[in-house]
């Protein structure tokens, strides 16, 4: 188990280094010279050179990359070219918003998806299955930002059930924060819930027709106990993998959800930085997303080896 996780950790590290290179190279590929842009048209070459040095744009590319990596490791991701605020600070203030939103959405999606998937698998081919499967297929076909617009229009404004926008920090007032995040989290979680439901159903159907389930029933174990004790745990493995893999989609979803509900989160920071070509921020944002993806998938691997004893020997098969 230790060896397996060490290998996965090493692979994660390699991915992270590669990702940092891609980000670094991508930012250098942007058209235009940010130092010139910042200095203005009438700046002297000395001023431009000074700005260049401040932005870390002097020296060879290798030098620049190593310097970038070095300061990134010490938590220094540069400053926003637009506001001068340190990128780390910008990320620190926006990340919790997106973090809570995503966590909320994942919890909702996993609970609802697994419950619905189990229901569908147990009543396979009957009414409940058709209803749940149909709903999940429709959910997969609905763009969640459009659903968000409709929800604001009808649920928040029309019926006044939820606040249409605004954000309350979780640290300030947890209950009101939860209240404000509910509608965005539901919207963000819809697609993930549909995917979780379908995977749970498929794996559950597989497990319920497996030989060991028949053997358990031949022992006199009831159908319900078989589902809970034998099938659910196996499905949990599948769901874990899905959540890890769908993280990228969730981040993309969070960006647009935040925009629709006016949440001051990481997504908003991303979009603002793109439209203003604030590239130290873009760089930092991308690095953080990549890091989050790699760390969370590492956590999934650890959980995996806890749940499935076979993994401790052979490793997670993909």
């Amino acid at each position, binding site marked *: 188990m230790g060896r397996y996780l060490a290998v996965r950790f090493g*692979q994660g590290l390699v*991915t992270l280094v590669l990702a940092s290179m891609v980000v670094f190279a*991508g930012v250098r590929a942007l058209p235009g010279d940010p130092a010139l842009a910042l200095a203005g048209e009438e700046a002297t070459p000395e001023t431009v050179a000074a700005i260049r040095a401040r932005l870390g744009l002097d020296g060879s590319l290798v030098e620049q990359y190593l310097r970038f990596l070095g300061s990134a490791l010490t938590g220094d991701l540069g400053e926003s070219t637009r506001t001068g605020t340190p990128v780390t600070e910008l990320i620190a203030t926006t990340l919790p918003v997106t973090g809570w939103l995503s966590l909320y959405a994942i919890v909702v999606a996993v609970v609802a998806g697994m419950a619905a998937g189990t229901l569908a698998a147990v009543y396979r081919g009957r009414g409940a299955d058709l209803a749940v499967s149909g709903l999940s297929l429709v959910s997969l*076909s609905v*763009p969640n930002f459009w659903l968000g617009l409709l929800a*604001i*229009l009808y649920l928040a404004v029309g019926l006044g059930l939820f606040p249409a926008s605004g954000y309350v920090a979780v640290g300030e007032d947890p209950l009101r924060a939860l209240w404000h995040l509910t509608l965005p989290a539901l919207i963000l979680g819809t697609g993930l819930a549909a995917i979780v439901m379908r995977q749970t159903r498929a794996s559950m159907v597989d497990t319920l027709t497996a030989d060991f389930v028949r053997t358990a029933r031949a022992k006199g174990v009831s159908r319900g106990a078989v589902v809970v004790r034998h099938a659910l745990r196996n499905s949990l493995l599948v769901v874990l993998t899905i959540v890890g893999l769908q*993280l990228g989609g969730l981040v993309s979803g969070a960006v647009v959800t935040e925009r629709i509900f006016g949440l001051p989160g990481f997504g908003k920071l*991303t979009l603002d930085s793109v439209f203003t070509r604030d590239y130290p921020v873009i760089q930092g944002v991308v690095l953080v997303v990549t890091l989050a*993806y790699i760390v969370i998938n590492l956590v999934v691997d650890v959980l995996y080896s806890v749940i499935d004893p076979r993994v401790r020997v052979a490793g997670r098969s993909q």
Partner: protein
Amino acid sequence: MTVTETVAPPGRGERGRVLAAFLRSRSGVAGAVLLAVVVLAALLAPVLAPYSPGAVHFETPFQLPRTVGFPLGTDDLGRDVLSRILFGARASLQVGLLAVALAVLVGTPLGLAAGWWRAADVVVSRLTDLTLAFPFLIIAVGLAAISGASLAGAAVALGVAQVPTMIRVVRAETLRLREREFVLAARAMDASGPRVLLTHVLPNAASSVIVQATVIMPVAVIGEALLSFLGLGIQPPDPSLGIMLSDAQQYLYRAPWAAVFPGVAIVLICLAFNLVGDALRDALAPGARR
């Protein structure tokens, strides 16, 4: 030597069986019909649309649906919602097809190689991990920043983001097939790796690739709408369902229909592919064959 078993009369063949199983699924048939309607509508948009998608009618903004001349109403500039949806759907399918083509053309060979050669697997899995670490929105952000937002950029971002899943599917199939005895038999004839991959592995993996393509298509269609909605995809004045939604958001309470109908169009397109894909997957499953 005597033949004790007789050979059964000719069957309908593999394709016939899959088709029969597909036609038995009601949702699959419904999806196929819906798909035909969607594709025809998009193809015939120039013929079907009452107006050009950009045609403005300043004298008639915010017309309600079912107004004479504007079956689905108009937006703030008096543009016909129906015409814009038809052309927008065309763009959606274009982006979707490009993204799927990219994912299939890049993902299939990489998946085959990764499943067959250990060295290729090491390289490909690092590349896969790397790509997965960048959400499609981030890739689109990068592309938009470098070369400006465009339909092609959106398609590339969406396609690239789907390459890892395609690799995963094809690699898994290759790993499953490489230990099958007909592949071993071919290797014992000294057939080369590429030959075995092309003659035995690819034909047997093709159905999984097709099913995966039907999964990617709706993801790409929604992705296009999302990117265009954020201003990272198709640029005005070109029609796009995402741009329509983004415009409509500004006068959401004044003209909700301008937000509702483009969304419904997206749902119908995606539902068509999802229904067909699901039924196809079931029809291709071994259980449905025997």
